[in-house]
């Protein structure tokens, strides 16, 4: 709990302008992307973290991005510049599927 409070305080201090919305993040846990669908503004960076004891990837269906192999605790960040619907999957567990919906920044 202490760390959680610290983390929140740090986030507030470090990024006051973005304090209203937390940094977009996806976690890989139990062979699933959480949340499976995430909506962000164009230009935002999504942090993908592997919380499983197996390796995963974040690989775009259309080939536009690929984390390559993410070991346990592995972190990968990707900035979604253009609006659109980006579907992705895990090369090692193709039944793992996720989506990032990118909206125009001022919509």
């Amino acid at each position, binding site marked *: 709990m202490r760390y959680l409070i610290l983390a929140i305080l740090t986030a507030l201090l470090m990024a006051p302008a973005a304090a209203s919305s937390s940094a977009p993040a996806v976690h890989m846990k139990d062979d699933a992307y959480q949340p499976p669908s995430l909506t962000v503004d164009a230009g935002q960076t999504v942090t993908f973290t592997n919380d499983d*004891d197996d390796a995963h990837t974040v*690989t775009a269906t259309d080939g536009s991005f690929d984390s390559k*192999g993410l070991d346990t605790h592995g972190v990968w960040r990707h900035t979604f510049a253009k609006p659109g619907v980006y579907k992705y999957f895990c090369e*090692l567990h*193709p039944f793992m599927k996720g989506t990032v919906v990118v909206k125009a920044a001022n919509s």
Partner: protein
Amino acid sequence: MRRGSFLEHVAWTGAGIAYSLGAGGLLSGRAVAASANDAVEFVQISDSHIGFHQPANPDVAQTLQMTVDAINAMPTQPSFVVHTGDITHLSTAKQFDDARAILSQLRAPLIALPGEHDVVGNDFKPYLANFRIPQSTTGGWASWDARGVHYVVVLNVFNFEKMGLLGTDQLGWLANDLARVASSTPVVVFTHVPLYALYPQWGWTTEDGTKAIALLQRFDHVTILNGHIHQIVTHQEGNIRFASADATAYPQPKPGAAAKPGPVTLPHADLLRAIGYRKVEIDDGNVRLEDRALAT
């Protein structure tokens, strides 16, 4: 051992199997080493995941080393050892180096095919630089004949969205390859992901595997050996016998026995009972599989 010399070793030993068909000297040389009856013996190992560092097996290098030591201690050395994929955990140069350092200690020739963990990022190069099967096609698949048995390696770990998938190129090659083989010839197929629908919910299937199985149905004796699922599962369809092998790294849950596949953590003594290698003996089409755990 440096990379260059190991590749020479693999190339030479791989060629030795192929040449044993035509070159009388090599054939008789091998006959001396074979067992008293004319049975063919080889060993299958699988899923070493070198680079994995989690509680299910904190030292996968050690368990692979134990496996290699056990095979090297067999009184009659197998004619070859086949690794049915997932040699490494994430295809890194260091993981391939570490795997090669252990596998190069095998006294018998090694044939190693890739699993999806060996081609992460859809990059075939690190595997090819380390473990390319001698005389394989540009696609990586291969076949050869030795001592009356037709051996085939098919790869189903690419096109990741539909893993496993063989693809039309490979299926076309397989049809041509098998067309030259008499139906009475024992056929042994090595692959990584199960060719049949073992448990599709966890991706333990090959989408176009039924097309390969159809090509194999006319043969009297077919044995299809794979890895990927880290456990022994056998299955029979007509004259075709399927057998998934244990890993050398860690077990996975039985199909449907858990919410998801993945490493299962056991006490160390139980881990050693759940991993190991497989001795295969082929005698006039009779195929005997003997799975040996690293501890009893």
